[in-house]
């Protein structure tokens, strides 16, 4: 069984590599896959133009799709685990919307929730709002009689709330700021740079070992709180720590590339169908699945209308919404 799961992980990784190459090859300047490989492996052997296109323009964007996809999917997977809820994800529960609002405050008014340098203002604002929302959800999920569906409804209320606040920000902001906010609520990878990619990767790399260390405890949580507690897991602390990490994972991508929805919902589900919920496999599979989906979405966003790049958040929503609906309709009939 374990061997089959490792094979599936390898297949996912291979799919990611193919998607990445395709993403690098597509765009206003068409490159063949072989040219891309050459530009990556032996940069000096290709024409300068191809070198610039691959290394300076496309690679940060394509890798950002991979890292953001992995981070959002990981965040969704762990939210589903700790809230025992198949419909949980940073996007559906309003954490992404909260992060958007936090970042928009900085974008439109230069408002800093913490006194830090201007360049870290957006991600920190986003993180603080995301964290606040995660704590609200956490507090309410502990109440008696709160079901998975209640939490989702609460999440919808939070999404509406933060969208309304976001609209308010836009109403008061300057025209220039409004354009920036609007562009970025649709989610777009085109503003990715090596610097932003570095920070997002660092956040993912920092949280990953913390999740790995807790992987047996997180898997135990899926057997129910009583069972996990009987195994010696400090359930409350594990939930709280995980929520902080999830907020980090959700906030940084939002701050840099805007709201990209449904990756955190679809990625973990694909992973669960493939390898189950043993975190040793579920965690890497979720990250790979999320990365593949966002990378492929990036490809789709380029080929829908040749010559233009669709906002990627629109593409993932169009894929994600039917999936979300099918989950809601199916949740009564079968276990998830």
């Amino acid at each position, binding site marked *: *069984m374990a061997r089959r799961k490792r094979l599936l992980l390898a297949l996912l990784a291979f799919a990611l590599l193919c998607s990445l190459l395709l993403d690098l090859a597509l765009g206003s300047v068409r490159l063949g896959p072989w040219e891309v490989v050459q530009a990556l492996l032996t940069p000096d052997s290709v024409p300068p133009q191809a070198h610039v296109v691959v290394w300076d323009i496309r690679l940060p964007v394509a890798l950002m799709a991979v890292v953001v996809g992995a981070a959002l999917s990981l965040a969704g997977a762990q939210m589903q685990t700790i809230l025992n809820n198949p419909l949980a994800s940073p996007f559906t529960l309003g954490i992404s919307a909260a992060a958007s609002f936090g970042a928009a405050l900085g974008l439109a008014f230069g408002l800093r929730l913490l006194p830090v340098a201007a360049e870290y203002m957006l991600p920190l604002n986003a993180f603080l709002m995301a964290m606040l929302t995660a704590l609200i959800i956490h507090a309410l999920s502990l109440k008696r009689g709160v079901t998975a569906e209640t939490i989702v409804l609460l999440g919808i209320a939070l999404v509406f709330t933060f969208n309304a606040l976001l609209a308010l920000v836009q109403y008061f902001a300057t025209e220039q700021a409004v354009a920036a906010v609007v562009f970025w609520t649709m989610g777009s990878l085109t503003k990715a740079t090596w610097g932003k990619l570095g920070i997002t990767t660092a956040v993912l790399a920092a949280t990953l070992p913390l999740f790995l260390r807790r992987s047996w405890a997180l898997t135990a949580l899926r057997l129910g709180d009583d069972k996990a507690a009987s195994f010696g897991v400090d359930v409350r602390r594990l939930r709280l720590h995980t929520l902080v990490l999830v907020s980090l994972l959700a906030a940084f991508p939002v701050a840099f590339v805007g709201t990209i929805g449904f990756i955190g919902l679809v990625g973990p589900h694909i992973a669960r169908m493939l390898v189950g919920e043993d975190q040793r496999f579920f965690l890497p599979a979720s990250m790979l699945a999320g990365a593949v989906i966002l990378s492929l979405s990036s490809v789709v966003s380029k080929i829908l209308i040749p010559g233009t790049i669709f906002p990627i958040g629109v593409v993932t929503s169009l894929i994600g919404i039917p999936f979300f609906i099918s989950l809601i309709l199916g949740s009564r009939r079968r276990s998830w």
Partner: protein
Amino acid sequence: MVTLRLEDVGAYHGRRLALSGISTPAFTDGDVVAVIGPNAAGKSTLFKRMAGLLGGPGDVVVTGTRRGASGICYMPQDSATSAALSVYESVLLARKQNASWIVQDADLAAVDEVLGSLGIADIAFRSLGELSGGQRQLASLAQTLARDPEILLMDEPTSALDLHRQMQVLTLVRDLVRQRRLLAFIALHDLNQVLRFADKVLVLSGGTSRGSGSCKDVITVDLLREVYNIDARIERCSQGNGQVIIDGYRTPLPGSTEP
């Protein structure tokens, strides 16, 4: 030698004191202790208190364990799960909670052994969500046994099992207790199983203790009338086991709030 003794133990459920004033003599390894009492007597609460999952007054005094608190393994009552985990994975993860992160051959061997001893090796790779109630209980038991318990706390481990598997599980637990010098506490409703398998008994009713000691001394006709409000005889069957034969019941159950 492993011993466990309760000293004026109580337990809080939220802010309510759900248990109080439970004291027992020391139980020692090699003993199977049956915990009996009507529904809502506080059996599960006492187990959680003993496992350290609930706070409360008094002391649970444990001596002689090699691994301290992690040697006390609690098996909660049946809880359904929809987890996409196989029986095998669930047993492995139970074993890995207090150990190193990496799975070693010894872990896999231990999981195989537990599944074999419970006779559920054939469902090892079935998903937990698709098991029957009895299979789920056996899987849960396997998870508990895979943790190398020194003190076992089992909350109604046989409630969903057929007669054959009840015998199989209780015999297995008793043999383990004898061979590995464990101390097992088992909540049971079937008093005939108690008389057959348990060495000692602890009787709970209305959130407090109604006696503890050897089965023969504690389980009496008077106690059954007081605690369960039933008329019963205790007779010795041809094989020498004590048997409870119930002749009738009276209403209401003492301590219950029903009219």
